[in-house]
């Protein structure tokens, strides 16, 4: 408990849903970003224990952001969050260094399970 999480999604609604689930279970949401480029910058500053990252976003998508983050922080823990129908992108994200993925829309229990597993 008390782990510091950063949320990256261009949809403020999705960030709000994730934040409610995480905060309600004792996690701390220390930062939010609405595209991959901002996520890379914020990661350097905030050094979160875990990042939950959307795949399709404007400017820089989630997969490129994972590559950037993992390049400078090989031990970064990143969970991808994707819609149904993006199977090939999920595989690419895992190859880029993401630990696991959550499919949208999600049940709170699925999110918490994946977060717990990723934080090891």
């Amino acid at each position, binding site marked *: 408990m008390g782990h510091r999480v950063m949320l990256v999604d*261009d*949809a*403020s*609604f*999705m960030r*709000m849903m994730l934040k409610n689930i995480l905060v309600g279970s004792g996690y701390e949401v220390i930062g939010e970003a609405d595209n991959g480029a901002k996520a890379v910058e914020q990661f350097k500053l905030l050094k979160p224990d875990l990042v939950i990252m959307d795949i*399709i*976003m*404007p400017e820089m998508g989630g997969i490129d952001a994972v590559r950037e983050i993992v390049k400078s922080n090989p031990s970064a823990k990143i969970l991808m969050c994707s*819609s*149904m*129908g*993006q*199977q*090939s*992108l999920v595989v690419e994200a895992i190859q880029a260094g993401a630990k696991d993925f959550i499919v*949208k*829309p*999600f*049940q709170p229990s699925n999110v918490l399970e994946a977060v717990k597993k990723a934080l090891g």
Partner: protein
Amino acid sequence: MELENFNDFQLDALREIGNVGAGNAATALSQMVGRRVGMSVTKVLVLPTEAIAGFLGGLNQNVAAVHMPIYGEICGIALVFFPLERINELSGMLIGKKEENPLHLSEMGESAIKELGSILTGAYLSALFRFVHIQMIHGVPGLALDMAQAVLDTVLVELEQKEEIAIVIETEFLENEKQLTGSFFLLPEAGSLKKLFTAFSKSLELPNNG
């Protein structure tokens, strides 16, 4: 590809994809609103693009449309239409707060409706992938609240060389005796439908024992 080139087999295949996609969509919607949502596919059809506004109730019909580009083996645009008069109710269900004016949704309400359109599109594209193994990825969604023709004019400009037809899956979602009709439209780029129907044929080919 012309409209009259569609045969019964291809339309049957589309209907089946529509059913599976709507099933995925109902599950997604149930998870988003936190209650069970039933569904039935009311229409699966292929329409000439100029007939889309008529299908939605006329050129001046007010609609809410979530639109997004489609990339991958088939490119184009996906649109999810909801009746505008229900959009504040739908947004209220998602964010837990009623919107006052449907033409000016709050930032959170707008984000929720865009995300809903995006997730429903993913549900239909995922059904398509399951049948024909054609990978299609949807891009960042936009939301338009306007008359049907105005929405179409804006969205179709983005598609330079389109097929002159649209694939339509109309689904009725039923939640706690309330009904909501959502229409999913796929507007493919020129040449894409041929690829799609070739894939349909391949997916149903019998193994060659000869």
